[in-house]
């Protein structure tokens, strides 16, 4: 055991987890995305105020661990003012980076680097990936199980 959890909880992650930005309910006409991490019981809604394809504002709501909370908090900041589609096409690559499979993409915003240490903690990759997974899951977007 040489991994240090304080690496994982990079100061940005801790800050955003303890004082998340853009947290709370969103107006009902915003588009809602949903993601869960069944292993830890995290469940979040990400709400986007869309103007055509552009994200005017983003908010999130729900409960989860420090890493997933911070990931959503950071995501709301990054997404504001961006084209939704641009980030939707990026989510696969971000998840691959988090999983340690590919290097950081130079065109991604630096704030994402706060999650660099997650790459050493395989069971936390899902937490950090959660907002990006959500982007591909507009509600209702799950496979509805038959029971």
């Amino acid at each position, binding site marked *: 055991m040489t991994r240090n959890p304080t690496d994982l*909880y990079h100061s940005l992650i801790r800050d955003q987890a303890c004082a998340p930005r853009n947290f709370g309910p969103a107006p009902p006409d915003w588009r809602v995305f949903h993601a869960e991490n*069944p292993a830890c019981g*995290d469940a979040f809604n990400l709400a986007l105020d869309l103007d055509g394809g552009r994200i005017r504002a983003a908010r999130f709501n729900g409960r989860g661990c420090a*890493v997933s909370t911070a990931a959503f908090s950071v995501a709301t900041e990054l997404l504001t003012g961006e084209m939704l589609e641009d980030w939707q096409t990026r989510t696969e690559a971000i998840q691959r980076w988090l999983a340690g499979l590919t290097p950081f993409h130079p065109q991604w915003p630096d704030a994402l680097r706060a999650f660099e240490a997650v790459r050493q903690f395989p069971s936390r990759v899902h937490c950090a990936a959660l907002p990006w997974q959500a982007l591909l899951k507009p509600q209702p977007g799950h496979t509805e199980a038959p029971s």
Partner: protein
Amino acid sequence: MIDAQWIAARRAEFPFFTDSGQPPPAYLDNAATTLRPRVVATALARACTDLTGNVHRATHHWSEETTMAYEAARAAVARWLGAAEPAEVLFTRNATESLNWVATGWGQARGQPGARVLVTAQEHHSNLLPWRAALQRCGGACLVAGVQPDGRVDPDQWHAALAQQPQVVAFPLVSNVTGIVNPVAEWARAARAAGALVVLDAAQGLIHHPPLALAASDFDFVVGSGHKLFGPPGIGFLWARRAHLNWLPPPLLGGEMVATVTATTAQWSEPPWRFEAGTPNIIGALGFAAALDYLRGLDRDQRTNHLRALTQYAQTALAAEPGVRLVGARPESAGILAFTVEGIHPHDVAQFADAENVAIRAGRLCAQPYIEALGHESLCRASFQVYNDESDIQRLLVGIRRARAFFLAEHKP
């Protein structure tokens, strides 16, 4: 009665400890899966090397020997469970599969519109989802007996549901979340008296439980997993009374389970083979039998006393820890302790525990409805075994304190 020497002797039997440095790691995730004693690894390697050929198939003596070894493993499980005969024990991959076989098979053979199955709000998903699916298919309804705030199943709700005459009553021996030990003998008696089939999910807690003596019990089906009994993962059992094996449809069709196949018909083999299509997990079965052997070699009273003492120690220590709240903790807990740390997500607590070389589990614990009924979204869980001692609990406390120091201290510069 925490006997350091006894624990040291146990640790010497598990490569997990002998292969790791000092201080020994604190493995407190025994409710997920137990560590495996050296004898089990040896049994797997030996079975892999010594057993040649398939079971129940060939005339050559190697296949005969393999068959005998596999059937001896079945007999060992049957003996351990107190079954009337080995044929009542089916080898499955795990308790989940065992429960699916019972629920799906019951639904196919006996499910009717309006049929009712009574489960508890305490269930592991594996004893809930198969029943819901079977009932949906046959047009029946699932009755769920709720839990009290202390985590126990509400007896009034349970008896009221039983009065609705469910065809099946299923419940867990021990909650995998809170370690609560259910009054299963009493429930089984009542359910049988009410004319229901009684299904016991014994995946959790069987390792510490007095012998079930199934032949003389009121149970109809009992399931469990080898990997919670010091055995390897991938092997479990379904015990069923002989009479039920005659109506339970075989879950898988194909080689081995069939006697005669014509152009349009097929006649199944006798139980238990009817339920074991294709080449089974022969090596896993032998590993499981070796684990039961190991378990039988440990004095039961000593095990029980150790577990009780350590659980009480842990309950006391965690209850006294600032910010920690126990969930559903009871004196008779089967070595499982659920808790939360105020203001910190269980996942983050577990991460800090891991940094201290302490394994605990955090999350929904495959029992989301139960956890929500207790007012939580996720929990931390520590669970104990023969190789755990007080220092493991102390190390867990260190992890908790570090997590609190990190997250709860004033951290802005």
